[in-house]
């Protein structure tokens, strides 16, 4: 038996409510899977999924326009983002793999984008290299370049100053470049 949160039941428009009910029936397991994987705690996962549903309800018009693949990605990204923020609120921040001291001591001039080595790399190769990046660096690049998080939110998620985000990005991209270069050798 699938249970549908009351927040969906309370949607005033019949068509919207039916849409969200179906969405919940189709994707709730995936959402719980994302939330449990990220938070590790079933109760927190419930909170995260519920919060994600609230966010999705706010975007019903947008969701209706998306094809099933895009919709699935959107739901996963939303659930993951909510789970990450919930984890931070609960003090379960991700393990720090970046060398914070080194990055903080970087001069601004070091934070120059120099990624043209990627230009000749197939996306599949790059994806493979991304898999090998430590999670924190991978998350940082994902949030910045794929999910379009604002710098404030990235800084909050990483527990760093907003004006340091650029340095951390440079560090992550250099690390990625090193991995790519190793693969090219």
């Amino acid at each position, binding site marked *: *038996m*699938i*249970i*549908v*949160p*009351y*927040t969906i*039941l*309370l949607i*005033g428009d019949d068509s919207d409510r*039916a849409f969200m*009910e*179906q969405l919940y*029936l189709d994707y*709730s*397991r*995936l*959402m*719980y*899977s*994302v939330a*449990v*994987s990220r938070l590790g705690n*079933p*109760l927190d*996962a*419930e*909170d995260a*999924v*519920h*919060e994600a549903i*609230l966010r999705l309800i706010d975007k019903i018009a947008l969701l209706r326009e998306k094809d099933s693949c895009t919709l*699935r*990605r959107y739901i*996963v*990204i939303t659930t993951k983002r909510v789970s990450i923020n919930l984890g931070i609120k609960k003090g379960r921040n991700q393990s720090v793999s970046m060398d914070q001291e080194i990055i903080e001591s970087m001069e601004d001039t070091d934070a120059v*984008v120099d*990624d*043209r080595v*990627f*230009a000749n*790399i197939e*996306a*599949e190769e*790059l*994806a493979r*290299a*991304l*898999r090998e990046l430590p999670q924190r660096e991978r998350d940082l*690049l*994902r949030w910045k*370049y*794929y999910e379009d998080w604002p710098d404030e939110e990235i800084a909050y998620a990483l527990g760093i100053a907003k004006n340091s985000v650029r340095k951390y990005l440079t560090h992550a991209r250099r690390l990625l470049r090193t991995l790519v270069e190793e693969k090219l050798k």
Partner: protein
Amino acid sequence: MRNQSPALCTREQLLQECEEARLRIAFFDLQESEIEAYEAIANKDECVANLATEKQSTALELIRRRTKAIRTKRFGRNALVATQRLAKVVAVVIAIIVLGLTTVFAVTPSFQIAVRDLLIRVTDQYAEIGIKDNRTMIVPQGWTGEYFPSYIPKGFRLQQKSENAMAFSFVEYKDATGKFIIYFEAQEGSRSNIDTEGARITTTTVHDHEAMVVEKENRITVSWVEDERYFVIMFDGEMSEAISIARSVQRVR
């Protein structure tokens, strides 16, 4: 940079944009494989299956524990945390098992039923115990729950109710302005969440049981545990009215 016309960008900026696009494609591919992994977990992992589907959950016990925590710590900061947690995790289940299990009524078919009270009269010589049927109240026809509020404010009409006898029963009333009342009762094995983010949470008593009152954006939710069941009233109006509805809930079977 993406807000700027390419004609106004430097070659370096365009190259950077190109690299970022490449990164996005790589993340797109990466995400697809991650979603497949999540779906594999969703299909295999028992914990996920239990979260997403209704099984013999220990929700009622969880409520009991947390309600007790509220009672014992109600004046401390922990009380608020415990209450919020209770609210977030288990307070409200308005559950639709599958689509189509609720019935929407244009006209309200209701019927009167006798409300039985336990009668206990103790005299010097003996104690008389019995059941008296001395009141009647209106409940929706086919109501599957064991309790029902005897007080519904004027102007509210039945909109929908749970149709089959299951682990829970709920009913929704609305008035001409769109305000609603939801009454929900569940027995062991049901659970859901209530949005308490930014809500004001207090406690009151309903039939001598501790009840939690969540106030958010003019919506009042009163929930409590009684007789191995938990109850929820959601009301789009005054808190005092919501509590009155909650306190009017009585056994109808």
